[in-house]
């Protein structure tokens, strides 16, 4: 029944992403950038805490996976053209990767 926990997490994460994107996206997709940062930070933290099994299915695979998106990130970057698209890629990926490492480090201290 682990998949039910994945479903529950995604049922919260995905609409949060939609609302953030709807409210904050502009010339840059600020809402999508924000949720991808938050999701990467949280998943790093959960991994650092050593979460696994059902808890990770709910919070990691479901919630963080539903909150973050690669498809919208790439389509939005591409559709914004060379300059804004490149900015979107860099501003999404560099902080997301660093925040994930930071989250893991914080979690591993606990």
């Amino acid at each position, binding site marked *: 029944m682990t998949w039910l926990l*994945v*479903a529950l997490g995604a*049922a919260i994460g*995905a609409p949060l992403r*939609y609302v953030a994107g*709807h409210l904050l996206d502009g010339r840059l997709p600020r809402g999508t950038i924000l949720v991808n940062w938050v999701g990467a930070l949280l998943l790093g933290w959960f*991994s650092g805490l050593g979460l696994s099994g059902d808890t990770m299915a709910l919070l990691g695979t479901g919630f963080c996976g539903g909150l973050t998106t690669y498809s*919208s990130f790439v389509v939005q970057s591409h559709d914004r053209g060379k300059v804004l698209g490149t900015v979107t890629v860099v501003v999404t990926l560099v902080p997301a990767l660093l925040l994930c490492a930071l989250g893991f480090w914080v979690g591993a201290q606990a």
Partner: protein
Amino acid sequence: MTKPPPLHVSVIAAVAAGGVAGAVLRYVLTVAFPDSTTGFPWTIFAVNVLGCFTLALLPHLRFVRRHALLPPLLGTGVLGGFTTLSTYAEQSRALVQSGHAGTATAYVVGTLVVCLAAVVLAERFTSAVQRGRFAKGGGDL
């Protein structure tokens, strides 16, 4: 056909339902084909590439354009829930930590490049007007 306002409960519910379907599908695939923790994470790579290609193709499909709830349900919901940036980031971090920085770099850059190529390919089947309407309809958030 009247379109529900963007934050109408029907749109939020469509995104939630789609997100559940996409995330569970991703979960099932990672159980069937678990990614190695020391090698290239092929399963999530394939999930993200397939999700990017399909999202870029959706504006081309006539039935998607005809129903106001389908762009948020299928694009933002199913494909947004299916693809993941958090797992991609965490897998990259874990690869670096376990001494596989080369694989991590190939994964980070390779996913981005192949996903962009998939989007370029899929968008050859769509027009700017179709993409604009799809985005306006909340399909790619």
